[in-house]
């Protein structure tokens, strides 16, 4: 049992060393991430600063799309996220967190929007 455990430890350490080396990413990974980030940052700034689309609502949706794309790029190329790191626990924690983030954001806006709607008559009354 103890010999098996010892071997297990060694195996673990060995396997981990390899996994670690892979998880740091390469020069190519970092450069790909950097170039993609520069592009995904520059386009929204240009869209807003020179008002290319001409419709604020559509521009807003487009730049949100670019932000999500850039967040994914950062996760993959800078934070080296993948479905296998730490046996899948990091991605599980991320999915859980994203769920909470979406509930927090969407829930707050939803509830507060309805509160505002309910406040409307009073606002009109006081005006």
């Amino acid at each position, binding site marked *: 049992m103890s010999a098996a455990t010892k071997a297990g430890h060694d195996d673990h350490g060995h396997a981990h060393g390899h996994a670690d080396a892979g998880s740091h990413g390469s020069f190519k990974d970092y450069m790909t991430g950097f170039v993609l980030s520069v592009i995904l940052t520059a386009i929204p700034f240009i869209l807003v600063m020179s008002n290319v689309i001409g419709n604020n609502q559509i521009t807003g949706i487009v730049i949100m799309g670019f932000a999500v794309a850039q*967040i994914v790029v950062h996760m993959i190329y800078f934070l080296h996220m993948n479905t296998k790191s730490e046996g899948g626990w990091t991605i599980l924690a991320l999915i859980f967190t994203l769920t*909470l983030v979406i509930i927090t954001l969407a829930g707050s806006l939803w509830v507060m929007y309805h509160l505002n709607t309910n406040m409307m008559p009073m606002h009109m009354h006081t005006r």
Partner: protein
Amino acid sequence: MATQASAAMNFESGRSPSVAIKAVDPTDFYDAKGEHHPEGSTMLGFWLYLMSDCLIFAALFATYAVVGRNYAAGPSPKDLFDLPLVALNTSMLLFSSITYGFAMLEMEKGDLSRVQIWLAVTGLFGLAFVGLELYEFHHLIHEGATPQRSAFLSAFFTLVGTHGLHVSLGIVWLVTLMAQVHKRGLVPENKRRLLCLSMFWHFLDVIWIGVFTFVYLMGVLQ
């Protein structure tokens, strides 16, 4: 004991072998002698911390989303935000991310002096970011757009200020680690710490993507 272990093995056999091996020795967890410190657990733990930090920012983003248009007859984002300055700030943080990446690559090669150089460059970009943000805050407050002025400005200063505080503390951590690396070299402990800071630093850049899109760009659009 043996049956338990084999049951665990069977249960885990569907996953990667390293997980199955972990399940063999339950006392592994306690690390009584301090000789076995699996690096992976630190990374996972730090990742969980980052996720909890992400929830703090989610709450601040939600607050900003709710009260971000309550100007109290004060200035609106369109009057206040200077997009070229924000673009410059964003590029500072992006540059610091890639230079930290270079420091990590040099760490892999074991080149101590180059690690220190890239860390120093990262720190300077970080300082430039914080400096520009403080300049912006100073400018806003000078114009009367203080956190007390309106709900929008309270939420703005809280959200952007919390991010700036994270970056500032990241710089303190970076300088501390540079001193550690200078003193002890690239020992496994320092490598682990540098990896944690790397995750922290890139995470702050991810949050900044949300800030410049949601607060600055969307603010100017309104």
